[in-house]
Structures are given as C-alpha cells and as structure tokens.
C-alpha cells in the first residue's frame, strides 16, 4: 500500500498512469492564487519533479486565496516558502524553488528542463512571454486566468493542431484597458476552482487520462456556477506575433508600454536621485516590500487624482509601483495635468529591482 493507492486502482489510470506522473516534471510559474491549488494537487497526485518560479513576496492581502501561506510568512519569498512547506509534506518529490521572476533572459533555461508548464501568473506581459517561450520549445502549457467572478482555462501546444494563447488573443491589450491589480477584488475560492481545473488538465496531459482541454477554452462564472466551452483553432494571423527565434525572443520587450510615457531603468533613475526630483511610490499601503528612504514620497495610485497639487513644486517626477503598470498610468495622469514637467516611470517597478 502506498499513498497513491486510491488513484492506482482507478480504471483508466492505474499503475501506468502513476508511473507516468512519477517520471514527469512540471514548472509552475507563479505561486499565487492559481499556483497554490495547482501545487497542492500536483504534489498530492505524485508528480515526480516540481519547480516553482516566483520572485514575489507574501503580503497580507494574498492570504484570502494563496492558501499555502499564513500570517508568519509575510514578507517571505513565495517560491521558497511554498517549497519549504512541500518538502516536509512529501519527501518523494524532487522540489526546486526559483525565487525570481520569469524573464526573456531566464525563460528558455528554466522551461527547457520540464515536461509541462503551468501559467499561474497574474499579468499580461508574463503570460505572453511564457506562451511564446512554450511555443518555441513546443512545451505543453496549461493556462488559467481569472477576473473578478470568472475564469478561463485551456491547454496549449498539445495535439495534432495545437493552439496557443495568441490564437485566442493575438496581442496583449493596451495598458489603459487593464484595471490595476489593487482595484479588482476576488473571492479566494475562484482561483481555487480554476487552479484545481489546471491541475486536472496537467495530470491528464502527463498521464494520458481522458481528454485535455486542447483546442478548447473553458469559461467559468462563479456567480451563476456556469461553465461554457469555446472551440479554438490555430490562427494564421497570430503566428506572426510570436518571435520566430530565440534571438528575437531575447530582444522582445514584453513589458507594457503606455503611449507617451518615458520609462527609465532603476540604474538610470538612480542617477537622477538627489537632484530636484520627486521620487514617488504609487503602491497602496501594505504592498511588500515597503520602501523607506529619504526624499521618497508615497502617494497611493487610488488617491493620486485627488492629490495632484502635491506635485506643483517638483520639476521632475519619477514614479514607480510593483510591476511598472500603475506607475505608467500615474505618469500619464500627471503629464496631462503638468505638460511642462519631466515625468518618468520606472520600468518593471519593484519587481525589476528584486530580480
């Protein structure tokens, strides 16, 4: 008797299915609302080798849905915290924590070593980056994402006429279209459901059980508990949007670019410091890690529009946030109010500083 007995006796799965899982390796990108349930069930099912990539740290507002973490984990890296938890729980699995964000520079090296990739990220730049890398490597990719009370799930790069994310949405939406991460709420159980569906799809692809959601996009609405399935097909128009080579992939800037906003790297920004520059953190209170330094102004994005007169004196303004999306919006907003001031947004935000 072993811990997999109840699935080994399942008709259609059996010891063969279990052996396939044991030999399989999975890379989970993002150990957040989706990544947590995915990891729980892939580990319990006995996938042999599991790695988690996440450069983010745990904050209090994560705890309603990121069920692997507790009060004592605040401020700790998500990938490392998740892996520590699982190493104690299941010693028969080979665990790897990668405490950084996935980028054009590290994607190929990380993804190459795994049989299947799970996209549990929470932003479009990462989703397109992961999609394109998986297309280039022909890696099965289990996709899931959520918005308020709805979720989408699919399986890419699997089957005879495989689809990928760009067959559904060839190009990322404009930054202005996307609500701020801090603005849209979510009930923890929704990523729980979508993450479980993603774990199920991964197990199906790896073990050969049932029919994975390839060439299908599953939609779920938690308010009326409705599922709907859409048929998707390879889209010739989207093919051109994917980098043709790794060289092209490495050159691609996946980060959002708001029209008319000047972006600076942290290095460039540091050179401006100390001069007559307002250095503004537009993150909401409680976002991790808090940054304290002299001359730093904190104006949460949610109240920025009411505090525009605070910037009257400054000649140059430097905005940053967690990922570089909100700071671009802040820069746009300020530039409209003060067309003569020099206003910048720091590319990649705090996340770029950490990785």
């Amino acid at each position, binding site marked *: 008797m072993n811990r997999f007995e109840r699935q080994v006796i399942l008709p259609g799965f059996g010891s063969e299915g279990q052996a396939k899982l044991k030999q399989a390796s999975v890379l989970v990108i*993002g150990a*957040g*609302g*989706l*990544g947590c349930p995915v990891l729980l069930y892939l580990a319990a099912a006995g996938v042999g080798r599991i790695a988690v990539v996440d450069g983010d740290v745990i904050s209090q507002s994560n705890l309603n849905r990121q069920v692997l973490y507790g009060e004592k984990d605040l401020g700790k890296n998500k990938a490392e915290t998740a892996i520590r938890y699982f190493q104690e729980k299941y010693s028969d699995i080979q665990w790897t924590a990668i405490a950084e964000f996935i980028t054009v520079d590290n994607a190929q090296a990380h993804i190459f070593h795994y049989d299947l990739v799970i*996209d*549990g*990220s*929470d*932003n*479009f730049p990462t*989703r397109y980056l992961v999609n394109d890398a998986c297309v280039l490597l022909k890696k099965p990719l289990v996709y*899931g*994402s*959520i*918005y*308020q009370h*709805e*979720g*989408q799930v699919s399986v890419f790069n699997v089957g005879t006429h495989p689809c990928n994310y760009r067959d*559904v*949405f060839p*190009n*990322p*939406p*404009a930054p*202005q*279209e*996307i*609500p701020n991460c801090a603005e*849209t709420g*979510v009930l923890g159980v929704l*990523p729980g459901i979508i993450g479980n569906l993603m774990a199920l799809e991964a197990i199906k692809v790896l073990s050969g059980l049932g029919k994975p959601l390839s060439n299908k*996009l599953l*939609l779920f*609405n938690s308010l009326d508990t409705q599922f*709907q*399935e*859409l*048929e*998707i*097909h390879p*889209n*010739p*128009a989207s093919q051109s949007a994917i980098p043709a080579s790794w060289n092209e992939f490495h050159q691609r800037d996946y980060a959002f670019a708001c029209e008319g906003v000047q972006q600076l790297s942290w290095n460039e920004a540091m050179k401006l410091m100390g001069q007559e520059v307002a250095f503004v953190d537009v993150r909401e209170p409680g976002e991790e890690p808090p940054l304290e330094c002299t001359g730093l102004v904190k104006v949460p994005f949610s109240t920025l529009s009411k505090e525009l007169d605070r910037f009257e004196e400054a000649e140059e303004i430097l905005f940053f946030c967690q990922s570089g999306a909100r700071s671009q919006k802040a820069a746009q907003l300020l530039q409209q109010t003060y067309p003569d001031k020099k206003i910048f947004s720091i590319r990649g935000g705090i996340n770029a500083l950490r990785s």
Partner: protein
Amino acid sequence: MCLCGFPTNNLTTCPLLGNFNIFKKVLFQMPNYIRLKAFGMLAEKIGADSLEIENPGSSEALRRQLLQQFPALQSLTFRMAVDRKLIQAETDISAGQEIALLPPFSGG
C-alpha cells in the same frame, strides 16, 4: 393577389402556391434575433451578461453596432465566438445564433 397571379386576398388559400405561401409567411414573421453573451469587463460595460438583440447580419456589423451603442467598448480588446466557436475573420450571423464576447483576463 398571389405570386402566381391567382386572385385571392388570403395568400394561403391559393390553390397553386398555398403551401409555399404559408412557408413564406412563417419565414418572414420569424423574428431575426441573436443572443449575446458578454464576459468579464465587457459585461460590466454593457450592463448585462446576456442580451437579445436584432441580428445585424455579420460579426463586423455587430462589432460596429456594439461600439456605437456602448462607447466604453471602443477602448477594449475582445474576440467573438459564434455558436461557441471562436471566429478569426468576418462571419455571417444568422437568426437564433449565440454570440460570445470574450475579453482577455490576466488575473491569477
């Protein structure tokens, strides 16, 4: 007067084309409606997640009509599915079909 020239006030009583006339009457009286299903932020902007509207005839005509009726959609990316099949080019829409309006989600 019937199509065939038979003098009758009630087209269905024409001895020649009576059956055809009944068919024609039913056909022309059938309401030409389609069902829209909006997802995510699109449902918020439209104000409903399900809506019955008159059939504009094609996916492009529908898109134009939606953007005009709901200007908030103009700045949003979305794809359409006709009878649960994501479309890649302009597609004819016929009465009774279900059109899904699908925005990208990024949350996780």
